């Protein structure tokens, strides 16, 4: 009986910025600890595991490249959900979430691009090719940067959030393009091997470290995201207090 009401109360707790701040300060050390543990295990597994008979040692790049690429898409999905929250429910925390996620997404996309390049050089003999997968990820990177620039260019955060929410949702068409580009077009990039309808085709020896690293990266994202959200809430609180201070100084003088 009490379960659903508790869940509802928890959700509305989250909705209040002050309660959210309290929640963040209790949760984040645990999340950070978990992230560190997962990274320790993941890094251990990825360095002790076997080299691939075809790709040799470079297969180890996969353990950072694939999770980063996965995060670049997941982060955008989180932003798109937040954008929906901004436009449909007009929720202030959704604004904060979308804004805080953009720099993090940009960084993980950058990691995916860099590690992809470093993997492509020994495998394909070139740093970069303009094929569908690589190009669409690069477009994603530009979109993240554009969203950051848009947010910075506007003074009023709520208005900026609405405008960027529209842009985020329009840009969401890019995500399925990235995901399926390797299947729709013939490219150099290898097709998906983990998330498939008929189960993973990848050898378990590589799957385990990859999975652990993917979870570790995801946890890292959530840790950074809630901390960045906290910073953004504080930033807005400061802005409100400053306006308040300017008004009350006029009364006093």
């Amino acid at each position: 009986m009490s379960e659903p009401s508790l869940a509802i109360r928890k959700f509305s707790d989250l909705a209040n910025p002050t309660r959210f701040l309290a929640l963040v300060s209790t949760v984040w050390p645990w999340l950070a600890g978990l992230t560190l543990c997962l990274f320790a295990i993941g890094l251990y597994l990825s360095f002790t595991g076997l080299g691939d008979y075809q790709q040799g040692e470079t297969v180890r790049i996969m353990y950072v490249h694939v999770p980063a690429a996965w995060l670049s898409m997941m982060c955008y999905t989180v932003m798109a959900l937040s954008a929906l929250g901004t436009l449909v429910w007009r929720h202030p925390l959704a604004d904060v979430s979308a804004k805080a996620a953009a720099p993090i997404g940009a960084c993980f996309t950058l990691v995916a691009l860099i590690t992809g390049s470093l993997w492509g050089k020994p495998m394909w003999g070139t740093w970069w090719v303009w094929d569908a997968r690589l190009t669409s990820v690069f477009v994603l990177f530009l979109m993240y940067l554009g969203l950051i620039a848009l947010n910075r260019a506007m003074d009023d955060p709520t208005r900026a959030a609405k405008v960027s929410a529209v842009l985020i949702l329009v840009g969401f068409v890019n995500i399925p393009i990235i995901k399926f580009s390797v299947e729709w077009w013939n490219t150099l990039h290898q097709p998906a091997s983990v998330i498939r309808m008929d189960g993973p085709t990848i050898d378990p020896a590589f799957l385990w470290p990859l999975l652990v690293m993917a979870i570790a990266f995801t946890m890292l994202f959530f840790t950074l995201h809630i901390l960045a959200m906290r910073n953004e809430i504080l930033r807005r609180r400061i802005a409100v207090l400053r306006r308040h201070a300017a008004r009350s100084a006029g009364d006093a003088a």
Partner: protein
Amino acid sequence: MSHAFYVTASYVAAFAVTFGLVLWVWLDHRGRHRELQRLEAAGIRRRSARSEDAR
């Protein structure tokens, strides 16, 4: 160049970017925290905080 070079480079790059991100979040928090404290020191507090004092 050896394959080990590419592997190391990608791990180092990934670490550098992630570290930068963590650093940004941390510095941002420290800066905001300081600004809030400065405002509070100047006697400007949130309405809810003031009403709690009154109670």
